């Protein structure tokens, strides 16, 4: 593989230099926190704090107003709290709920990677906030940054006896690939901010420059793919036989982000490269990480994800390197079949035993507003619920393992607070829609997403209902930029922000997360979106085949071409 290494451009990107100089992710974060004159960090530290699970953001709504007021932008921080496998306890929920009020914007965002996000935390409150969730065994290290991020796992405890084993493996992978630097503890938890201990730091897997770019791992237990494993750098598909977990099919090279105007960037689905027994999964993940560490592009961050490393080297060369590092070859992949990447809303489980409630959370945003007090309801439930709070990859919430005696009480609390949608109240389109945060806090956003999507859905619902499609689950995903946080390229309808009020429209992904969509129209405003979608939805209602999804329909009828390979996305 010497040619691969030799062909990599020599010049490191700016962020690589920051990492090199950071002394295992310390940089000057301590000094930045101590600076009372600004709500921001030193510029270099804004890169490093991502590794600690936080993004520096500004309130973009107030940008021009504050400039006129001779005030700096309203800087605040998003903190992404890892929840490996999405399983949180009631005490953990309580802490996060309280933190949102104490230091955040009084809301919790449940993300598409099964993490909690706090928004609007001021610089001076960062250590206190991190200390509070640390007390309930939650952390934010590697929530963002060029490392392995929160490990996802589909969250259907009732569906399979082996699910518990799969979640445990997700947690083990997370722990194994968590950075070993003591900087996180030193900066946020010890309060002893002056003493530096990097001399004893060592990163046996990452090395002191970490990865070239973010790295994502997700596990799924067929037939459910709500963790959308093909959008990850490493996807692991559990193979089960007679109630026994045998191992996992391994998929590599998924990733959805791209940049407008750069056709060498594209969303890509992971390729399945073989099967690995459960006991060897950690090792395989580690070896894939090290190949990316060594081969990934450190000169251009837009081309540094594993997907580009693989397409640059060629999949066979990548697999050969993996085999070499493992010391053996992977077994051939086993057969599997995904049915859905959606959440199955409502109550399930044995009426006599534990039951589970999959709860719709619009935009993943847990909040209180008049007539809809989801946050208050969940706070009350967390005071007695003995089961878990499970975050799904679709920004929803499962109240899992509810005691039989709590079932009626939980339902009543949700109803009292207007947080239990009645059957038929929401269209399937709305229940399954995803949106990223976008404006007003995300610095990447070109357009609205989470704040605007409900209004667009009000209008689309009219069309949907007029054509009798209220219960036709159509995956609609909206993001404010092309980076892919709400996995827009896996939406049967994908809307990606280009400019304020303008979106590119993508069509044709399928329901199981195994096919990408394709650009259909560019720069549409709301009227344009409705104008383009209305006839397609009408045709779908009239001409769809039995069980045919909207994405499959537009491909079958030639509206767009089917796209499986990332390299075909722009063609």
């Amino acid at each position, binding site marked *: 593989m010497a040619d691969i290494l030799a062909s990599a451009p020599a010049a490191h990107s700016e962020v690589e230099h920051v990492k090199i100089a950071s002394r295992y992710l310390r940089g000057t974060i301590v000094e930045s926190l101590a600076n*009372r*004159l600004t709500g921001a960090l030193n510029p270099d530290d804004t890169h490093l704090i991502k590794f600690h699970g936080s993004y520096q953001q500004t309130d973009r709504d107030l940008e021009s107003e504050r400039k006129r*007021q*001779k*005030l700096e932008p309203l800087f605040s921080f998003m903190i992404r709290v890892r929840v490996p496998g999405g399983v949180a306890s009631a005490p953990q929920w309580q802490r996060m709920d309280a933190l949102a009020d104490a230091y955040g914007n009084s809301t919790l965002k449940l993300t598409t990677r099964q993490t909690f996000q706090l928004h609007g935390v001021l610089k*001076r409150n960062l250590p206190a906030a991190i200390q509070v969730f640390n007390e309930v065994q939650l952390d934010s290290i590697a929530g963002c940054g060029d490392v392995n991020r929160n490990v996802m796992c589909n969250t259907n405890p009732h569906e399979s006896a082996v699910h518990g084993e799969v979640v445990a493996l997700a947690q083990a992978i997370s722990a194994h690939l968590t950075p070993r630097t003591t900087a996180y503890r030193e900066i946020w938890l010890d309060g002893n901010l002056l003493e530096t201990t990097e001399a004893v730091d060592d990163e046996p897997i990452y090395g002191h420059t970490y990865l070239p770019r973010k790295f994502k791992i997700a596990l799924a237990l067929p037939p459910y793919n709500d963790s959308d494993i093909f959008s990850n750098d490493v996807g692991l598909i559990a193979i089960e036989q007679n109630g026994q977990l045998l191992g996992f099919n391994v998929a590599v090279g998924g990733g959805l982000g791209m940049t407008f105007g750069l056709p060498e960037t594209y969303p890509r689905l992971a390729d399945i490269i073989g099967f690995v027994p459960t006991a060897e999964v950690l090792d395989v993940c580690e070896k894939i990480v090290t190949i990316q560490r060594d081969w990934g592009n450190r000169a251009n961050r837009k081309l540094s994800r594993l997907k580009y490393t693989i397409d640059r080297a060629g999949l066979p060369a990548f697999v050969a390197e993996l085999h070499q590092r493992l010391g053996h070859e992977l077994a051939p992949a086993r057969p599997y079949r995904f049915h859905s990447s959606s959440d199955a809303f409502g109550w399930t489980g044995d009426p006599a035993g534990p039951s589970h409630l999959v709860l719709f959370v619009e935009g993943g945003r847990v909040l209180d507003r008049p007539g809809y007090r989801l946050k208050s309801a969940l706070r009350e439930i967390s005071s007695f619920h003995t089961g878990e709070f499970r975050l799904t990859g679709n920004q929803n919430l499962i109240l899992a393992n509810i005691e039989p005696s709590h079932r009626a009480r939980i339902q009543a609390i949700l109803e009292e607070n207007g947080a239990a949608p009645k059957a038929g109240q929401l269209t399937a389109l709305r229940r399954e829609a995803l949106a990223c945060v976008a404006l007003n806090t995300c610095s990447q956003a070109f357009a609205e997403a989470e704040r605007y999507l409900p209004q667009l859905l009000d209008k689309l619902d009219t069309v949907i209902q007029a054509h009798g499609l209220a219960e036709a689950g159509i995956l609609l995903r909206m993001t404010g930029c092309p980076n892919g946080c709400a996995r827009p390229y896996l939406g049967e309808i994908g809307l990606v922000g280009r400019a304020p009020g303008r979106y590119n429209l993508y069509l044709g992904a399928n329901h199981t997360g195994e096919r990408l969509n394709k650009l259909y129209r560019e720069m549409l405003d709301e009227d344009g979106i409705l104008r383009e979608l209305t006839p397609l939805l009408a045709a779908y209602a009239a001409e769809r085949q039995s069980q045919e999804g909207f994405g499959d329909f537009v491909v079958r009828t030639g509206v767009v071409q089917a796209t499986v390979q990332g390299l075909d996305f722009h063609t």
Partner: protein
Amino acid sequence: MATVPLLPLTLDEAALQQLTAGLTPQQLVWLSGYFYGHATSGVVAAGAVVPAAAVAPAILAATQKLTILYGSHTGNGKKIAAQAAAAAASRGLTAEVHDMNDYPTRQLAQAQNLLVIVSTHGEGEPPISAEELHQFISGPRAPKLPKLRFTVLALGDKSYLHYCQTGKDFDQRLAELGGNRLLDRVDVDVAFQAPAAKWIEDVLDVLAGFVSTSPASVTSAPEADSLLHSFPDLHFTHENPWPAKVLESIQLNGRGSDKETYHIELDLTAAGLHYAPGDALAVVPINHNPLVEEVLRAARLSDTAPVQLGAESLPLAAALASRRELTVLTRDVLERYAALAPHAELHGLLADASRLQPYLYGRDVADLLTYFPTDQLTAQALADTLRPLPSRAYSIASSRLAHPDEVHLTVGAVRYEAHGRRKHGVCSSFLADRVAAGDEVRVYVQHNEYFKLPAETSTDIIMVGAGTGIAPFRAFVEERVELGSAGRNWLLFGNPHFTTDFLYQAEWQQHLKRGGLAKLDVAFSRDQAAKVYVQNRLLENSRDVFGWLENGAQFYVCGNKNRLGHAVQTALAQVVKKEAGLSPGDTTTYVKNLRKQRRYLEDVY
């Protein structure tokens, strides 16, 4: 005349005549202001600048018959002293004019004819420049003054309980020390010009009987004028303000703040109105119509009832709106009103100072008329009972070098609920709510003699400001940046919240980046459980504070007198005690010397 040079400059009369030939009196006034502005902004090399007060003794040194001492914060005292000296000169009297701050106290024993012009601050305290002399005559070392003839002009503000207290103190003590009054003390309120001019004439009439005139020292009118014209903005006054166009009005506090602070930019193009950093701008406000209507309702008087104000006749509503103080209730108003409305409780209040002050606090004219109604009130009686509406002065927040033809203000809107009604500060709410870009605001400059940048641009400065107390420091830093001053600038600023109340934050960040500020420390009192103030930052930085002072730095404080002024003084004493290892007595002396040397300067209110 021939032996004493008229001008401190190396210019002779002829050269000056040549320079100024053909200029109208108005142009001359403008020119004098132009040069004054240059001098106070330090453009002229420091050695060439001789303050007017230093000029006077040189002119009038021939005899030592008349001594004029002034002590005031705003420069009004100095103005009156200059006028008095000029008037004396025109009558052939030589006068020696001193700022009390610079007057050697021991000379008092030799004074023969003494005019004292002194203002009063806050709760009956002397202005800083008068502190030492006030203390001296009150103390055990005060000399007997049997040969002294004196009189006192006390400057004050009737809205304060201890009206003209310092003037009263001087008057009483000089008499106790054996002095004889030339004239009884005269107390003058905010509108001081006319009574002060009359006082000058009266006192000179009396003096004529005691003092011989010396033909050799007769000073001509132009010289007296030149002394006067060192205050170029005399032509803009409360009675004759400049209508300045509002260029911009910006709320400086971010959303969610409890504070409401406005940055107001005014156009001075063609005004010929000059100021230096540290000066204040007086704004002539107009009462809010709803308040005028409340007063009319409470008084049960017609808005159109004609009233006579001096020679002028106008409808009551108009008189109340623009000519009478409605938002602040003062003792003198209560006294006059009590004479019309014989309520026992009202008389009781006036007889008991301990109850009067709490009563006045937060009450306005409408409150008074509502709770003590009377049928005896006529429109004219009401107009005569109320005080003239004074202007409000704001420390100027801009440098003319950075913003030619503009003046900027930092105005905190005063609003509160009291005695069942919502109250608004007359001028701050006028500026905040009723003035928009394009409107005109009537203004004039009030010079602050003491709160000025160091004469040497290489001197370091430490600036401590809280809330709107930041205003003069914006002017200071802008000015020093424009001048390229070598002295370092250190700002310490405090307000409740970082995200919303860091006034001019972006500008300070830029100054810090570019060297306009060498140091910047901030204290946001309500951002954490324990309140933190600028004085805490002074203590945390005690080594640097002391080091800067030892290096000759000037120390400035601006903000609320009670909340900030005292706390900073205490903190500074602690700094000195800690860093210099001085005894409490020596610490007091050290800080006192800073004041005496005019290196500790306050603009507190």
